[in-house]
């Protein structure tokens, strides 16, 4: 068990922006929320699942809605508390800890603010270790763990708790409720025991996010050898270094889609194309896929190593395209169907990244 410090928080914001792979919502507001919650209610402890009673109940909390609405309708804080309490009440049991669903983007930080208010620790694990747009896109779904019972709460006291027959239906019902509740709401779902999380969760996600951010901050400060150290830690590889020469954005079915084309700095005959659906999902060099979801594609500004989000993409930006292998826990049967290219409507095979920590994938959709 260790206390989260304000320095950790800064590194976590940077790490979360990187793990957002271009999306996941701006962690800025979430960071302000955590600071205020720590001022008002005290510090937050980060725990390993093994430090808790294996039968103890762990609940998740996250913000759901549209990023463009969240910047206008800032959370109250109470919606997350209400959502967690409602689910605990439905289950007839009090939680011993909270957990993020998504370490990547703003939802990395939301559980910290809620945990400070509830006086609970936050468990050092999650179910994505990157950003994904839908509730069912988790390693828990692969393990057969239901997202429901699930709560959706607003800041006024409106609240639903529901059961579903699939995690896809949990996503559908939650989105439907959110439409009526103002598009910036709280969810709590994937109720599990600490023992289950030790077995099925992605371990050490919060610490990983802080460590990743700390190493990237060193790169931004220009420390010698820091970029190599960052790449080694993330098991990442620079796939391409170039200049953005084309951006095409379009919004369909509520998702921000787009294509970015990058021309190589040293060899203009080489180009990389990146496909976007909220997050950066696929990277092609000369038509061949080289990085594919669920592995992570991150764009770093060549000058200052700032992660570039899909909203801030601009013509002429000089970038490093970094490929990072997804968390090893993803590599199990069903991964490709759930979060591979085809899950986002692309007729492209998953291309595993070469990584020491990644065992060869047995994808059943090949």
């Amino acid at each position, binding site marked *: 068990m260790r206390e989260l410090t304000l320095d950790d928080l800064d590194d976590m914001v940077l790490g979360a922006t990187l793990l957002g792979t271009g999306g996941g919502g701006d962690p800025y507001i979430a960071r*302000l929320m955590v600071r205020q919650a720590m001022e008002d209610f005290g510090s937050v402890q980060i725990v390993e699942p093994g430090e808790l009673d294996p039968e103890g109940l762990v609940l998740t909390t996250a913000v759901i809605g549209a*990023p*463009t*609405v969240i910047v*206008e309708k800032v959370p*109250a804080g109470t919606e997350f508390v209400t959502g967690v309490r409602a689910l605990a009440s439905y289950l007839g049991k009090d939680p011993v800890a909270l957990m993020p669903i998504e370490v990547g983007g703003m939802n990395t930080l939301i559980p910290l603010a809620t945990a400070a208010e509830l006086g609970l620790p936050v468990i050092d694990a999650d179910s994505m270790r990157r950003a994904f747009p839908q509730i069912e896109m988790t390693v828990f779904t692969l393990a057969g763990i239901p997202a429901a019972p699930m709560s959706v709460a607003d800041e006024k006291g409106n609240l639903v708790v529901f059961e579903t027959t699939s995690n896809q239906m949990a996503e559908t019902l939650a989105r439907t409720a959110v439409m009526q509740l103002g598009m910036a709401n709280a969810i709590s779902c994937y109720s599990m025991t600490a023992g289950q999380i030790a077995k099925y969760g992605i371990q050490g996600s919060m610490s990983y996010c802080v460590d990743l951010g700390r190493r990237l901050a060193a790169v931004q400060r220009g420390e010698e050898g820091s970029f190599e150290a960052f790449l080694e830690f993330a098991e990442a590889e620079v796939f391409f270094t170039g200049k953005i020469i084309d951006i095409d954005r379009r919004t369909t079915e509520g998702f921000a889609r787009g294509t970015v084309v990058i021309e190589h700095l040293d060899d203009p005959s080489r180009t990389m194309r990146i496909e976007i659906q909220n997050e950066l999902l696929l990277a092609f060099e000369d038509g061949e896929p080289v990085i594919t979801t669920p592995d992570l594609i991150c764009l770093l500004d060549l000058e200052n190593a700032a992660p570039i989000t899909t909203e801030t993409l601009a013509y002429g930006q000089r970038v490093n395209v970094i490929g990072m292998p997804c968390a090893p826990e993803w590599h199990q049967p069903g991964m490709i169907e759930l979060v591979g290219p085809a899950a986002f409507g692309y007729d492209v095979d998953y291309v595993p990244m070469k990584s020491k920590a990644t065992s060869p994938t047995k994808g059943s959709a090949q």
Partner: protein
Amino acid sequence: MTQLRIGIDVGGTNTDAVVVDQDGQVVASTKAATTPDPSDGIRAALDEVIKGVDTSLISQAMLGTTHPANAIIRRRDLERVGVLRLAAPSSLAVRPGAAWPADLHATVIGPAEIIRGGFEYDGREIAPLDEEAVRRFARQCVGQVNSIAITCAFAPASFDHELRAAELVQSEVGDELRVGLSHQVGSIGMLERENATILNAALFGVARAVVDGFHAALASHGLDVDSYLTQNDGTLMTSDEATRLPILTVGSGPTNSMRGACALAGLSDALVIDVGGTSADVGILVDGFPRESSAAVEVGGVRTNFRMPDLISIGLGGGTIVTGPAGSVVVGPDSVGYRVITEALINGGSTLTLSDISTAGGRLSGFGDPLKVEDLDPRIVEQALDWVDAQVQILSERMKASRQALPLIAVGGGSHLIPDSVPGVAEVIRPAHHSVANAFGAAIAEASGAVDRVYRYESEGREKCLDDAKQLAVDAAIRSGADPDQVRITSVVEVPMSYLPGQGCRVQVKAAGPLAATHA
């Protein structure tokens, strides 16, 4: 008979003034040092520039000034502000002023409260406005602050609660307190808009003093003319408007410089590089206006979301220090700044600067003694100039919006460093009068109006919503003094809101036009 305009720009170092005729020709110009009280500099520049000009022909006067920006940066002359947010129960997780620097917070923010009110994305109320809380807050503020900044959730789309709250404050305390409303100041992003609204209200006193000083200077020369201030998008506000929205003048200096440079070169689409003693700023003009930054803009350490020109700055200027032997030459980022006139080798000093390199490389002449750099290792000169050229190319490419090669206009005291040709740039232009580009930019500014709103296409239809936004922008431009017959829409941007299955869309429209000739 020809009409003349005066443009004055108060910068950090210099106060420039020009008199321009209706064809855009410079009739007179002057450059003087900015004074501790900028009004003195304005008066002095005005005295100088109208010597020999028939003042009866002058019909308009435009001022671009750093007063408000400096007031924020130096935390001087700022007024205390009461902060009222209409959004509860939403937004309680982040209090007003949450990420402000402590000293600015202590100087500016008085009583602050989040009360019930505000709107959802679909136009429904988050809660009915708590009118009693508004009245109570207004009474509480009397004697503690000069004004109240009011921000309501989703005000860019629905601002009835802001208007009602302003009415209530007025009826409760009359003229004891001024009111600033967020929908007039900023766009989407409530916390940033609230910050901008608070800073704006804190500047009410500064703005009044600037406008009064400007009017007094004009009156002392018997100039009974229409007066305007330039805002950061390169267009004008009437003096009256500037006293209500002074925050919009912050950042007008670089904009005036870019627009002035382009107009002096006779262009409307170009890259502009302004090279000073310490740094170079690069920006881009599209259809005569600077492209705006998409990133959050900080003013005095406070995150805001108002419109600012998209500029990239690097440490490259006439005073930039060059060190190291041939083979490992290091340029900058340190600079001797304005002391280049004594510290550079060519001026008898002992520091190798880019001005020395430029002289030795044949780019600069008539500044100092070239014999003093005669013995400089040519490899050092070449390597330093290679670095400069590479930086200029990189900056130009980062600024461009497409592959199309644009002209690059070089202005400022250090512009001699810019090479005559840059890869990816159509041509390098060094216009006449470039040293007073800022004041010229102010003199030629147009009146404009802008709208940034969230519309819901499913209820009214897209065409009707866009027409509404365009009409609002045109009306706003005419209110700002644009000639109703010559107003045009200069940009329309639609940003569909992601994850919103309905047809919520953020619409940004701008209109601009030349000033109506009022003394015709």
